[in-house]
Structure formats: C-alpha cells, structure tokens
C-alpha cells in the first residue's frame, strides 16, 4: 500500500465511524420498533436525507473494503500487485452498484 491508497482507506474509515454509530443506533431502534418491510420502507421512502446517508455509506464502504481486500490478496494469496488491484477494483465496483441499487430500492422505488 502506498500513501494514496492509505489516505483513501483511512479517510473512508474515519468517515464511516460516525455513520456506523448512527447505523447501529437505527438498527437497535428498528428492531425494537419491529422489523417489517412496511416499517423500514416507511422510514426511508422518499427521504433525501436517508438517501444521502446511505449513499455516502455505500461509497465509503466500497472504497474502504476494496482497498482492504487488496492488501489481503497481496499478503495472503499468491497474487501480485496488478492482479490484486484488478480484483479489488472489481469488488469495489460491485459494492457500489449493489449498494446504489439497494439505496434506490428503499428510497425511491
């Protein structure tokens, strides 16, 4: 890892820290209030704030996790830098696509 990847990885981690806290809090609240599709969608549908919140989370997690996995590939599997970069970018893109789809689903669909 070099300084550029490091900054993205740690930066997104720092960004996610408060997001995770909020997410956990919401989860606790949600499980108490009942976890039905109706409840969930009731909270999220049409809420730009939720869209922003989870949108940011998705992007940050995708960047963060793909760089993390890249390091692990290099260290634990016989994968060289280039291949690891390729694979982990794939993971990142996958996460962003699925994540965007999920946010779209719960907010706008």
């Amino acid at each position, binding site marked *: 890892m070099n300084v550029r990847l490091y900054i993205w990885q740690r930066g997104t981690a720092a960004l996610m820290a408060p997001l995770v806290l909020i997410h956990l809090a919401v989860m*606790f609240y949600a499980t108490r209030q009942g976890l039905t*599709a109706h409840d969930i969608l009731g909270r999220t549908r049409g809420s730009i704030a939720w869209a922003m919140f989870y949108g940011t989370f998705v992007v940050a997690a995708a960047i963060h996790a793909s760089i993390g996995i890249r390091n692990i590939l290099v260290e634990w599997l016989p994968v060289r830098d280039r291949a690891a970069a390729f694979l982990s970018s794939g993971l990142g893109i996958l996460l962003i696509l699925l994540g965007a789809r999920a946010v779209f689903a*719960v907010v706008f669909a």
Partner: protein
Amino acid sequence: MSAPPRPYRRNALWIAAMVHRVSGIGLALFLPLHFLALGLSLQGAARLDSFLRWTDIPLIKLAEGGLVFLLGVHFLGGLRVLFVENFDWRVNQFRVATAAGGAAAMLAFAFLIQVL
C-alpha cells in the same frame, strides 16, 4: 523460509490485528448480501417482508448477531488503529484491544437480546 512453528503470533496485539482483518473480510463478504436483500424491495414490499420473516429463524438471528459483532469489533478495532496512527496512544495497547473486543461482544449481546 525455515519451517519452525511461530507461537509468537500469540501476542495479544497481533491477535487484535487478526480479529480486525477477519472481521473486515466477514463484513466485505456480507455487504453484497445485505445490499441484495434491501434490493428485494424493488420487487415490492411483500418480497422484502417474506425475506425478513425468513430472518426470524433463530439461527439467522444468531448470524445477524454475529454480523453486528463483526461490525462492532471491526469498528472499535479500526478506531484503535486510527488512534494509534494519529494520536500518541501507543502504550497500554493491550488493554485498549481487550476493551474493544469486550465492548463489541457486549454490543452484539445487547443486539441479540433485542432481536430474540
């Protein structure tokens, strides 16, 4: 490299790093599934509901508790790393690591009690 076994990995802080790594992998594997599940609502609330009901099975609840635990340890372990790297917090790391693990376990336990 030579073959001798390496019990030095029993070092507490090394274990903390490994827990962090494994939880990170766990989260990275879980995240696509999580997104897929939420994406189900594209096919209507009923579809999502049937999925959520399926998640009522205790085993699945337990697995969810596990996920919260993963997120918890990874979050706290990650904070530990961020602190070590960015503040002068390098003594007594052992206690911080244990505290992080403990806090995450409590969090997961609390969550389990909630959902079960």
